[in-house]
């Protein structure tokens, strides 16, 4: 028995690209009744497809064991993507993509997946190399998803008002930075930050008070657990009614949304210190506050950060949804709901992109602080061996 293992992904890529050369690249123009474009009309895409067939076939036998090989197939895939975009917009394929075109995309998909796969398995003892590989994987995956989105929207000719292509969103993002900045300032800097700080801060203080008074702990916590299961979003119209149109009402919604996760987590965390450690402090006749600061708060930190992370995503979403119920005419939620009505869906997506960026950055920042503050925690520990 020979031990040759065929690389399945490369095989799929090669076959799909081969079929792509054979099947019609585009559909038929409904007006003229003629084929819109042939592979042979567009040298770029023909070359790219041929290249895919060759590399796919080669690596089907060779296997993509090495990182250099992965680099080659990723390079071929990037070239292919570039040609596909060129054909879509430069050669009027947009809106009429046919079987051949989609087979070509499938071939690229197999390449990209296999390439990412190899990079994901890459192991190096050099920190720098390993880290760049670790970052490259999700980025490459994300870029591929954007490409797919672009190609599907353009290829099927999805109306702009339903779903704009990433390129259109990107252009809009760049050309509207002033509006985006103003909205960001209103929603994020004013409402989210203040709501988050007040909500998490007050919950933290209340948690310590609750912890001091066992009666409250027994009485308030079960209710707290219930309240965190509430559709808090429902209070948004009430908050607007109570706190007015400006950012204060949004901050109030955020305070309510973030309060209970923080309360419940902090109280749980304050009880996380082990019995042994508590006994240890007792043998030193350590007082309440001394034990709180030296033992229980440090032990509670992982729980506190857990809540801070959950809340970082909740806060922005809360603010945006609350703007739905009345705002001054600036803010990310305002813009989203207004621009849908104006059929400027690309602007809507630019705001969504901004929200996703801001939310991810916020989460990342909290996660970073967590890593610094609780570097002692087992989950962050580098293995000693």
């Amino acid at each position, binding site marked *: 028995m020979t031990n040759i293992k065929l690389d399945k992904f490369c095989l799929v890529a090669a076959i799909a690209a081969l079929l792509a050369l054979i099947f019609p690249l585009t559909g038929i123009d409904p007006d003229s009744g003629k084929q819109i474009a042939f592979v042979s009309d567009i040298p770029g895409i023909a070359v790219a497809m041929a290249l895919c067939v060759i590399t796919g076939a080669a690596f089907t036998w060779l296997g993509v064991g090495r990182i250099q090989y992965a680099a080659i197939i990723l390079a071929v895939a990037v070239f292919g993507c570039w040609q596909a975009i060129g054909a879509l917009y430069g050669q009027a394929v947009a809106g009429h993509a046919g079987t051949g075109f989609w087979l070509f995309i499938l071939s690229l998909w197999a390449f990209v997946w296999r390439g990412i796969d190899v990079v994901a398995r890459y192991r190096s003892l050099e920190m720098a190399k390993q880290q760049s590989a670790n970052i490259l994987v999700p980025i490459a995956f994300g870029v591929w998803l954007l490409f797919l989105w672009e190609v599907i929207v353009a290829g099927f000719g999805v109306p702009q008002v339903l779903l704009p292509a990433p390129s259109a969103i990107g252009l809009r993002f760049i050309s509207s930075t002033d509006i985006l900045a103003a909205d960001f300032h209103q929603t994020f800097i004013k409402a989210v930050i203040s709501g988050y700080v007040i909500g998490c801060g007050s919950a933290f203080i209340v948690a310590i008070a609750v912890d001091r008074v066992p009666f409250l702990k027994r009485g*308030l916590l079960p209710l707290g657990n219930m309240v965190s299961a509430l559709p808090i979003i429902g209070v948004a119209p009430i908050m607007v009614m109570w706190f007015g149109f400006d950012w204060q009402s949004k901050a109030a919604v955020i305070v309510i949304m973030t309060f209970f996760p923080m309360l419940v987590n902090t109280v749980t965390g304050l009880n996380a210190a082990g019995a042994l450690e508590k006994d240890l402090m007792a043998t030193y006749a350590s007082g309440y506050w001394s034990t709180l600061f030296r033992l229980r708060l440090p032990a509670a930190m992982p729980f506190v950060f857990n809540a801070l992370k959950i809340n970082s995503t909740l806060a922005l979403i809360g603010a945006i949804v609350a703007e739905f119920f009345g705002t001054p005419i600036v803010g990310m939620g305002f813009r989203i709901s207004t621009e849908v009505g104006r059929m400027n869906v690309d602007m809507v997506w630019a705001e969504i992109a901004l929200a996703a960026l801001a939310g991810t950055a916020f989460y990342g920042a909290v996660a970073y602080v967590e890593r610094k503050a609780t570097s002692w925690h087992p989950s962050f520990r580098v293995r000693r061996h």
Partner: protein
Amino acid sequence: MTSNAATMNGAMGGASLWSRLMSGQAGPVTVVLIALFVIWYVGAVFMNAPTQIDRYNRAGETWTTTRLIEDTLAQERPILPAPHQVAQEMHKTIFATSITSKRSLVYHTWVTLSSTLLGFVIGTALGIFLAVGIVHVVTLEKSLMPWVISSQTIPILAIAPMIVVVLGAIGLKGLVPKAIISTYLCFFPVTISMVKGLRSPQVIQLDLMRTYNASKWQTFWSLRLPSAMPYLFASLKVAIAISLVGAIVGELPTGAQAGLGARLLAGSYYGQTIQIWSALLTAAFVAAIMVVMVGWCERRVLARMGVRG
């Protein structure tokens, strides 16, 4: 020492009914609830007083404090309705109305509940599926995981209307778009917890399976999945609550269609705060009941698995 022993015995044996009540959970919860009601009433009086006084002034009436308090607790469109007003409205719309009527909260609850449950089931399935992929396929772990987290920073709730329209364009109407919004929200906690749960078997247990030369599937069924059960249930409690939020928000834009979200909106549209609050409280009860039911399933399953407690 002896005195110490005495107090301990005292605490165990002859404790007064009162202190025993208050040392459990039911007692304190009741007290806190009563306190909340008192605050609510006081709040209602204070928040509704300005408009009430305005109204007296406009009508040129004179008023006394007692009358003011009475009137603030009986407004038709109060800023903050009093608990008994909400209770009356809930009684009227839940018990005193035929459940097939469009004015019955039971009917609206059912509409919301059905898409909640559908979304919850799909979301849980999706969440588990993703987690299984992430745990078994390195590439998925590295490429997908960061995007799973980022996906939750997209304000899906704000673009819910657009989603409903776009899904409508591809022929998905009624229950499904709402359920999809629920799905989007509730797969996340399930994925995160299940990844943790499926990874929770200790190295030694995995090694054990290896010494038996167990296949991936055998390891999954006899080790990973059972270990993940506690994590799964913890996340299901979050997921079901969040799924309800999704269904409610998904109903907001569909305006005049049925559901608790539509009730919230319609109440808001006509400034009928009592209606808003009763829809809100109903949603809260539904959420609580669903969480309790998941907890009940959890206890049953874990008990069958022999977990102590």
